[in-house]
């Protein structure tokens, strides 16, 4: 009885479970025996009447002391020995292993394979082969735990740690983060997908998006990142002022900052610093604490690509932003309102302030927004029905949800009524 461990899906599982069940059986036996003896004594030698019966003056017995010192010692030595031996097996990585690089970062797991293929939140491994997951963290401590494989190791910034296991069965298994790492610690989960060797090799080679990225020039990658990382939400390309300063003619232009200091050339270091630590130099007339830090989300190459992209915005040629937000050759009539709403969601860059997965970016997330009610800044409450959303699109400053900055620009005159209707249809679909 008391067999609750998850399914045995790795080479370690059988050994760990045997040891675990051994300890369980010995423990249960001891508890039942000792508590049984105690209850029996309490009943058998209970005080009859209100005067005590004669009790012998037993001070102890050396023989018994030796017995119940030796017995626990033996059990401990036996269990400790196997604990150490099986641990050594867990840490002994055979040399023809498949190595996968895992990177823990506040609240998601990124995996990278030796051929450069990257995935987030999903580790795909072949069955039957020894797997070594080499791990490091980019911010705080995390811990990589796969219950079904009985392996766990903390993930430490600036250092490597590893787990080694050999999956025996295909299937999907939980991967948990077990070292407390902040708000979404309980959300920092990933999926281990064990597939057959053939399917794994096919999945590994299918790298359509990787190929495309490697042929693009850094400036193009920068343009794509400009959209994907959400810069387009606050920094326009045509000089118009959104939440942040426009990127047009930004490179090497003179900049004056809120604290009065000035630089005469906005060079690479200034841009890099503003990406990593935006509040260091806030341009005059713009509010601080709005731009999130991209430290950890964009690595040095990606920031370099964005800088290259900004350099191309010297006003000489019209910015062609790939990634399909401005020009779209899709015939809108054929789409359903929801799909049109989704297209608008990207084109009108709602994407950069309103996420779809519940996480807070700058504005409230669209996930579960429909019919949601809550409090507004300065008292009063809102119910997210159709006309509330319409009012918020046209004059967003009127009703600002509590806990969010009043940073949304008005779309008065940029969206027709039925376009707003499409957006509402799309919002309804985001559960």
């Amino acid at each position, binding site marked *: 009885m*008391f067999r609750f*461990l998850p399914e045995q899906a790795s080479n370690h599982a059988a050994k*760990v479970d045997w*040891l675990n069940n051994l*300890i369980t059986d*010995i*423990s249960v036996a001891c*508890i039942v025996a*000792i*508590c049984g003896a*105690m*209850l029996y*004594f*309490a009943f058998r*030698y*209970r*005080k009859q009447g209100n005067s*005590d019966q004669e*009790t*012998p*003056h*037993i*001070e*102890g*017995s050396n023989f*018994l002391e030796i017995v*119940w*010192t030796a017995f*626990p010692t033996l059990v401990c030595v036996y*269990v*400790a020995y*196997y*604990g*150490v031996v*099986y*641990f*050594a097996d867990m840490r002994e990585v055979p040399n023809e292993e498949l190595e996968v690089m895992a990177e823990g970062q506040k609240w998601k797991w990124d995996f990278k394979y030796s051929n450069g293929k990257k995935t987030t939140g999903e580790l795909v491994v072949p069955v039957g082969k020894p797997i070594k997951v080499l791990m490091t963290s980019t911010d*705080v*401590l995390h*811990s990589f735990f796969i219950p079904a494989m*009985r*392996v*766990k*190791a*903390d993930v*430490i*910034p*600036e250092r490597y740690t590893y787990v080694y296991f050999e999956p025996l069965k295909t299937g999907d298994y*939980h991967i*948990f*983060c*077990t*070292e*407390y790492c*902040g*708000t979404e*610690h*309980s*959300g920092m*989960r990933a999926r281990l997908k064990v597939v057959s060797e053939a399917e794994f090799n096919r999945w590994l080679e299918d790298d359509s998006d990787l190929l495309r990225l490697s042929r693009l020039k850094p400036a193009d990658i920068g343009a794509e990142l400009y959209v994907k990382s959400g810069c387009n939400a606050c920094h326009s390309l045509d000089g118009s002022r959104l939440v942040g300063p426009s990127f047009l003619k930004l490179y090497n232009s003179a900049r004056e900052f809120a604290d009065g200091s000035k630089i005469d050339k906005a060079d690479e270091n200034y841009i890099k610093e503003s990406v990593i630590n935006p509040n260091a130099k806030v341009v005059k007339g713009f509010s601080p604490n709005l731009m999130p830090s991209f430290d950890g989300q964009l690595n040095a190459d990606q920031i370099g690509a964005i800088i290259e992209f900004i350099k191309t915005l010297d006003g000489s040629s019209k910015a062609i932003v790939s990634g399909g937000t401005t020009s779209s050759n899709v015939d809108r009539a054929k789409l359903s309102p929801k799909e049109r709403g989704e297209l608008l969601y990207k084109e009108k860059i709602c994407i950069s302030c309103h996420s779809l997965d519940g996480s807070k970016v700058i504005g409230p997330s669209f996930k579960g927004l429909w019919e949601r009610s809550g409090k507004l800044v300065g008292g009063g409450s809102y119910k997210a029905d159709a006309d509330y959303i319409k009012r918020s699109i046209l004059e967003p400053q009127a009703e600002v949800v509590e806990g969010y900055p009043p940073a949304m620009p008005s779309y008065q005159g940029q969206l027709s009524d039925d376009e707003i209707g499409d957006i509402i249809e799309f919002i309804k679909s985001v559960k």
Partner: protein
Amino acid sequence: MDKQDMNEGQSVFNLSYLKQPKGLWSWLVTLDHKRIALLYLSALIVFFFLGGVFALLMRLELAHVGKQMIDPDTYNILFTLHGVIMIFLFIVPGIPAVLGNFCLPLMLGAKDVAFPRLNLFSYYIYVAGAIMAIIGLSNPADTGWTFYAPYSVRTSTGVIMMTAAAFVLGFSSILTGLNFIVTIHRMRAPGLTWFRLPVFVWGIYATSVIQVLATPVVGMSLVLLIVERMFGLGIFDPKLGGDPVLFQHLFWFYSHPVVYIMVLPAFGIVGEVIPVFSRKPLFGYKMVVFSSVGIAAIGFFVWAHHMFVAGISDPSAKIFSIVTFAVAVPTAIKVFNWVSTMYRGSISLTTPMLYAMAFVFLFLIAGTTGVYLATLAVDVFYHDTYFVVAHFHYTIQGGAVIGLIMGLHYWFPKISGKHYNTIVANIAWALIMIGFNLTFLPQFVLGMEGMPRRYYDYPAEFQNLHTISTVGAFINGVGYMMALINLFVTFVWGKRFAEANPYEAIGLEWRAPSPPPTENFDQQPIVNHGPYDYGRVALH
């Protein structure tokens, strides 16, 4: 209790430390170890209640999958505050500060502890630390009571105030330990040799040694954490060149011995209660004493079993796993000796005896689940899962808190001079037993199924066990409320006065009247026999 006993009890009561000298000021600047014990007790109960409320809020949130009423940040703050309050503000001072302060001088036949003013000074350091912790509630930390770097270095929440509070509270603990060690060495009654000391005094001695020798280490590591947060000195944060595993080493160097600070006094109380209510000498007195001191000593060598998967090297993990098993043996010896004491005794199931038997049962579970976590290969799976949460609640709540409640019930006639209502007390005992096991047995199963700890939300398959655990937590809470209210009501309004030695126990504290006057004994008691000479018929 006829009329004559009633006013005789009343007159003793009026001469006792509770009544002489009068006035609030005399309580606030008292040098009397008994009054300081009650001052500590009142503060501890407030924080026990506060910590309990945070625990129940967490259990409510965890009752069902998804968001019930609080968001992740508040949940993280809740489990941090629950940890910090319950450990630094309630259970670490716990038995030593309350029952140690009250009973130690009485058991040694002394008038007071060695340094009475230092005793009061320790209380006011505790109050200062408590105030700092309450101020810390304004911007509470969300790092967990372990304050692991680099998260604790980088988070914007109030880590500095919380760690400073823990540092100050550490000093109160050091000075109390120091006071008790000197008292036991220098102020024993004539004839009271080391091996005639009651087991509770040995428990307090071992605890005080750990308090004095382990607390400075955590004090310094928290100061280093504060200095790193303030001045950016790279000690623990890898971005500044520090080593987060070093913080874990220094933290657990204290935090493992601290679990023995919590539980050794409770072992001492069980060693006092079982012989009295079995009317039999404690079985294997010397072995029980040696195992107490042994646990305290070995406790300093095993700290890295909290870090088996924290990135320490494999040889180091193996060595610490083997050494950790050395601690399991003395604990087992103690349990065997307690149960053997009851053999052929004359057992009366009073409330303290019920708690003692409950303690043996709960601590058996605590001890055996500790074996899982000491075994290296198995701990890789169980580390930081709910199995660990359940294990340390069995050791701390099942051990130290039940020990404190048992001690309060056992010495209640001596502390208050009155008898509590035993029926209400036994019902409370039953509620605590049911509630506690209902809360934490499911958590062992959750741990076995692989649910990590400190999770605000969890996959759906863990749902039912969490609901059961939440129900259990509320029953547990009601049980403790009932037990403490019963004692409080009797303490203030009780009328059934207790005589000096209600249980005919052998021990110096029972030679003083209950409640004892400020000077404890009118003339210096002399000791000429062992602490547990209950058996009338000498076998050999």
